[in-house]
């Protein structure tokens, strides 16, 4: 490969108390003739330190580009670790602050250290032709590769999401709380940003990662950033209105034993799973579908409280 297309850069740094500096880094992959005037995609992951699927996706995207650098016609900025301390310490939020990093954007220049970092990240990503923020659910739930879009940004983002080789595009209602996410901050200031959810926390699901790496290469190809061949994106299911998804919350505390398979089409009345009590050897509750649909989220972590989410179903009648 050509040695000069890949440049590791520091986005921002903060001194830690004892013999260490926190650095957020990106790898800028650019054509040999430079980045000036070129289209730019930013691939972001690791805002939540327990979501690791994006690690393999970032590696795979960089590897593919570096194998054939002459086919790169735009700029690819890869940010694999927005919350490096979280990734290192198996912590979802920012260690030391117990703070969800995806609730502090756009941050402020003069705020706490966390808000300063958030602000520097926004400055670095702003102006990208597309930003893709890769998440991996959490340690409790497994997700089919999907893109989530705030209904406010539907018109801009759905055509881009269709390029990403995901199985599902979920258009959800707007919520004030989500205004402090990276995606909302960027979308509302003119940088189109897709939020990918795939797999499960603390694990790498290789098949999903390769599917999404294919999607990124296809998206780059369509945006004029990558001249190489790309796998044609699969046609995703796009959710309809906001009531198109059924949430299954545990009616009882216990151990959740799934009965249905992930991404399985279920009929009305099918069993999604059971909640059992190991002490008594009893079934506490049986969770059934209220109508036909596809199970796109399934509980991974067995212990549930009353109310814990155990699955989500996209209603068949809502599929476009």
């Amino acid at each position, binding site marked *: 490969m050509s040695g000069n297309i890949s440049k590791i850069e520091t986005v921002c740094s*903060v*001194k*830690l108390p*004892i013999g260490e500096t926190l650095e957020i880094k990106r790898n800028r992959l650019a054509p040999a003739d430079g980045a000036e005037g070129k289209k730019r995609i930013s691939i972001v992951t690791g805002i939540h330190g327990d979501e690791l699927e994006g690690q393999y996706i970032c590696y795979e995207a960089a590897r593919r580009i570096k194998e054939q650098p002459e086919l790169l016609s735009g700029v690819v900025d890869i940010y694999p670790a927005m919350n490096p301390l979280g990734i290192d310490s198996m912590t979802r939020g920012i260690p030391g602050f117990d703070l969800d990093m995806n609730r502090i954007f756009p941050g402020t220049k003069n705020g706490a250290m966390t808000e300063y970092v958030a602000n520097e990240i926004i400055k670095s990503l702003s102006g990208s032709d597309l930003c893709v923020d890769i998440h991996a659910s959490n340690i409790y739930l497994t997700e089919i590769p999907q893109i989530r879009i705030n209904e406010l940004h539907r018109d801009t983002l759905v055509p881009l999401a269709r390029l990403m080789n995901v199985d599902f595009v979920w258009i959800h209602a707007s919520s*004030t709380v989500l205004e*402090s996410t990276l995606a909302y901050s960027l979308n509302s200031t003119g940088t189109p940003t897709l939020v990918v959810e795939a797999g499960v926390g603390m694990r790498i699901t290789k098949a999903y990662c390769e599917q999404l790496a294919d999607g990124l290469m296809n998206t780059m190809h369509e945006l004029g950033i990558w001249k190489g061949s790309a796998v044609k994106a699969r046609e995703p299911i796009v959710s309809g209105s906001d009531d198109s998804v059924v949430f299954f*919350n545990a009616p009882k505390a216990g151990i959740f034993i799934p009965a249905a398979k992930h991404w399985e089409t279920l009929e009305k009345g099918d069993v999604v799973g059971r909640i059992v009590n190991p002490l008594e050897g009893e079934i506490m509750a049986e969770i059934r579908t209220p109508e036909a649909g596809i199970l796109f989220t399934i509980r991974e972590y067995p212990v549930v409280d009353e*109310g814990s989410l155990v699955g989500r179903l996209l209603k068949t009648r809502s599929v476009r």
Partner: protein
Amino acid sequence: MKKINIYELNSLYREPMRVEGYEYGEGEKSVCVVGSMRGNEIQQLFACSKLIQRLKQLEEKGCIAEGKSILVIPCINTYSMNIGKRFWSTDNTDINRMFPGYSEGETTQRIAAGVFEKIKDYKYGIQFASNYMAGSFLPHIRMMRTGFEDVETAKKFEFPYVVVRNTRPFDTTTLNYNWQIWETKAFSIFTTSTESIDAVSAKNAVKGIERMLNAEGVIRSSIAGGYHYNSQVLDDERLISVRCAEAGIYENMVAVGDEVYEGQVLARITDPYEGTLKEELVSPADGTVFFLHNAPLVYASTAVMKLVVE
């Protein structure tokens, strides 16, 4: 005093989590006070226990006004307190980011909904609150600018300060914000500490609540001691931050409440290995120390102090 069940959540292997309340008087839902919602809010729980004792005495003396009722909920999150974890024991979510709650939703949404249903119709709502920054505050009443905030009533606690701040997106799911939206006049009380007990500060807070209840005609009491200030109303944005450029071992040279002058050394940061001075933080103006970082280590770019400048 009546002890009542506010909400109950079953668990697989623990006793059910019971949210309990203490009710005084009968009639109009006048005042609701909420203590700890997070597992580390020890001072908030302690202060509530002192309030519960005091209201019991007042009720026994017939000092609760006729037709008025008061509810105190000392703790909404016993599960997290009992295991020393700040947020919800299983999924690490924050109950104070779940209001008004959703009874069919996830666990902490259900807790928030179950509690809010019982407390949303009170005329006044008071919460013993805590901040995520490691530090000490001057005692103050804090409120969000929602259009429903009532600064004049906040002054009736006779605390040194009433701080008003603008609402941010994540505030919309806090108890205080939702109380206001449901037309309860809401006040957050910050005493000096969270994870440790400051008995004097807790006592002052109880006296402050007593003063406010007295002024609003909910109780009839003669109050001695505690704060007795003509509260200064501050806009949060007008507090001046003192920030450090260096990281290392942190040592305050002043205490919360100290009057400081321009150029005075407020704190020092030293090298954690060699003990050499890395940074001296000096006061940018004459003022009073309102907030103070009190952890022994500090990151660079931290707002370690906030000053009230006259």
